[in-house]
């Protein structure tokens, strides 16, 4: 036994001390890293091309139907209420929303907007959706007392461009509106914070390279919730378990594609082997840039980013934060060795302090 643990311990240490680069950075094959043998399937993922998204929300419904996810909302009283965030009444990803379609009404002075994709090239003004304050719908911040004090209703009216930066110089009929839609989902990160911090092994990396919660294991500790740099996973009030997109793990084994991708009418959500999706995405980006859609950019595609690249990545038409995505997410486990070192040193210090307190113990 001792040998076994020594060996394992050695491996743990290797992984941990950076000999095996598995806490951050590019990782060609996260499945192998997670102990799946060499003949496991290729890593799969989603490429969500928001330039063809029509915001129909089929993905949201198909996901719920397949995964038997309950209606969202914390209780019946706020279930059937408008959020006022354009046609988005889901609000965000959560335990009961594994797909979330964001709607952004982006207003620009006439002639400066680029058609959604393609069309003639016009200038691009970075003036986009204004920052709007307040909790919006859904989750009023978990602890109202600690909510940002400026939380108010989402008062779009007060934020309309003619009362803002563009001021009176752009009358109503000289403003163009761009309506951006994007179906958000769990990113199935190469380095998944939720998975790293899960103390029970409920969250695990599958042979497909995806990140899945095992509901029979999860004890609802909630650690994964704040560990996700994208705010994806959450604990469901009704059953206490943490839930998020499984990339339809139960379907993959049978060769079925995930429910959302299957339903998506315009193929905005594409499912497949990640390397192929990446190639397709690069080609699509080049095509859009060729057509003058300069604001198109890929998000989560880069294996050098803070999470080692996403298994579910996106083509966006504006800055990520406009869609509610963090502009430069990192997996905090990246800093864990340093944190452990600090904690260990401090612990030593604390122990020393206790001992020191007894130094030449003066007694009254």
């Amino acid at each position, binding site marked *: 036994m001792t040998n076994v643990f020594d060996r394992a311990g050695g491996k743990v240490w290797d992984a941990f001390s950076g000999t095996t680069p598995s806490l951050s950075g590019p990782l060609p094959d996260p499945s192998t890293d997670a102990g799946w043998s060499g003949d496991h399937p290729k890593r799969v993922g989603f490429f969500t091309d928001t330039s063809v998204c029509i915001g129909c929300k089929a993905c949201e419904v198909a996901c719920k139907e397949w995964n038997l996810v309950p209606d969202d909302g914390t209780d019946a009283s706020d279930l059937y209420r408008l959020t006022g965030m354009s046609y988005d009444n889901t609000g965000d990803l959560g335990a009961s929303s594994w797909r979330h379609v964001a709607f952004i009404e982006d207003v620009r002075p006439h002639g400066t907007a680029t058609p959604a994709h393609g069309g003639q090239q016009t200038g691009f003004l970075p003036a986009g959706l204004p920052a709007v304050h307040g909790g919006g719908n859904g989750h009023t911040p978990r602890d109202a007392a600690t909510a940002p004090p400026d939380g108010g209703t989402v008062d779009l009216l007060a934020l309309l461009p003619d009362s803002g930066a563009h001021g009176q110089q752009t009358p109503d009929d000289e403003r163009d509106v761009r309506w951006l839609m994007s179906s958000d989902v769990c990113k199935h990160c190469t380095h998944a914070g939720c998975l790293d911090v899960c103390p029970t092994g409920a969250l695990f990396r599958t042979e497909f390279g995806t990140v899945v919660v095992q509901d029979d294991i999860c004890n609802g500790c909630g650690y994964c919730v*704040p560990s996700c740099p994208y705010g994806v996973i959450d604990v469901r009030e009704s059953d206490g378990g943490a839930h998020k997109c499984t990339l339809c793990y139960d379907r993959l084994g049978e060769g079925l594609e995930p429910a959302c991708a299957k339903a998506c009418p315009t193929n905005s959500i594409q499912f497949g082997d990640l390397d192929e999706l990446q190639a397709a995405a690069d080609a699509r980006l080049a095509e859009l840039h060729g057509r003058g859609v300069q604001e198109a950019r890929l998000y989560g595609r880069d294996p050098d980013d803070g999470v080692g690249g996403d298994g579910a990545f996106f083509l966006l038409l504006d800055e990520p934060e406009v869609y509610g995505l963090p502009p430069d997410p990192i997996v905090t486990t990246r800093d864990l060795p340093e944190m452990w070192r600090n904690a260990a040193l401090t612990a030593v210090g604390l122990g020393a302090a206790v001992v020191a307190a007894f130094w030449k113990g003066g007694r009254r």
Partner: protein
Amino acid sequence: MTDTNPAEIPTRFGHDEGREADRGSERRGRGRKGEQLQVPEAEFRSYYGRPIIKAPVWKNPDVPLYLFLGGLAATSAGLGALGGATDRPTLRRTGRLAAAGGAVGGTVFLVHDLHRPSRFLHMLRVFKPTSPLSVGTWILSPFATFAAATAAAEVVEPSLRRRGAHGLARVVRRAGNASGAASAVIGPALGTYTAVLFSNTAVPTWHEAHRHLPIVFAGSAAAAGGGMGLVGSSVRDNVPAARLAVAGAAVELAAGEVMERQLGLLGDVYRKGRAHTLMRASKACLAAGAVGTLLGRRRRWSAALSGLALMAGSALTRFGVFDAGIASANDPAHIVVPQRERLEQRRSTMDQDVAPPDRTFA
């Protein structure tokens, strides 16, 4: 149209506070009126001002109390063990009982915090060095076992002696000493791992403080354990507790201050709202407790009072840090602004000729 009812604001969206009449004039600004900020307002864009990451679902007060009790137990175990070794029976007794009480109480709160408490034992399926909570479980479990055994010994031994079972009492005492020593050795880890627990999250105010938080928490643990020692031990025995408490309070105060300053924008959560109140109260308690200890250690009541103040200060820090994290998670600016800055920095250091101009890795 005077006979229709006035517009109703749906309760789901309405917050009474913060409805500034002229919010519209600050489209891109953060729109915080009437709030004196040290950090200039940052411009950022977001999705309807909604949080980007999810705030912890950890329960309040369970988790702050667990942190506090863990810290208390961590140092109490050491005080108990060394108190026994240096013939300070009241400190020994206090330390041992507090260590056990803290560990058991902390475990109770930790289990209660789970949304599926019956599955607490699932924590023992795995050992994950990447999960501070897993590591913490493997710290807490033996610690609590040893501490509880030690406390049991502490309680059982005298009664054995009273019944004349001296041999058995001796065995029990030795066992208690051994397990007490073990818990004392493990203790400091229990006191500082919780800092990693918080830091290893995407909550900006916690993660960015990962260099300071262990020190703050260590100080807090020392203040709590020391404070408990002051409360529970006699004036004869309480010097180490007083030293530890004062040192802990000093460290906690200093490290806390440094942390808040170095957080910059992210520190704003400590300068407003409930976290601000809690941290102010914490500092006041710590300062009062430390001064009280220095001046009044020799009187049983003032020593106890100072000890209570220090414990309160320690606990309030935990609550304050917890609240600050929630507020930070709920504020999209905490995500967007630093990450944007990071991106800009990276971009500005990139060679413009090499960087593909048409590809944005956001």
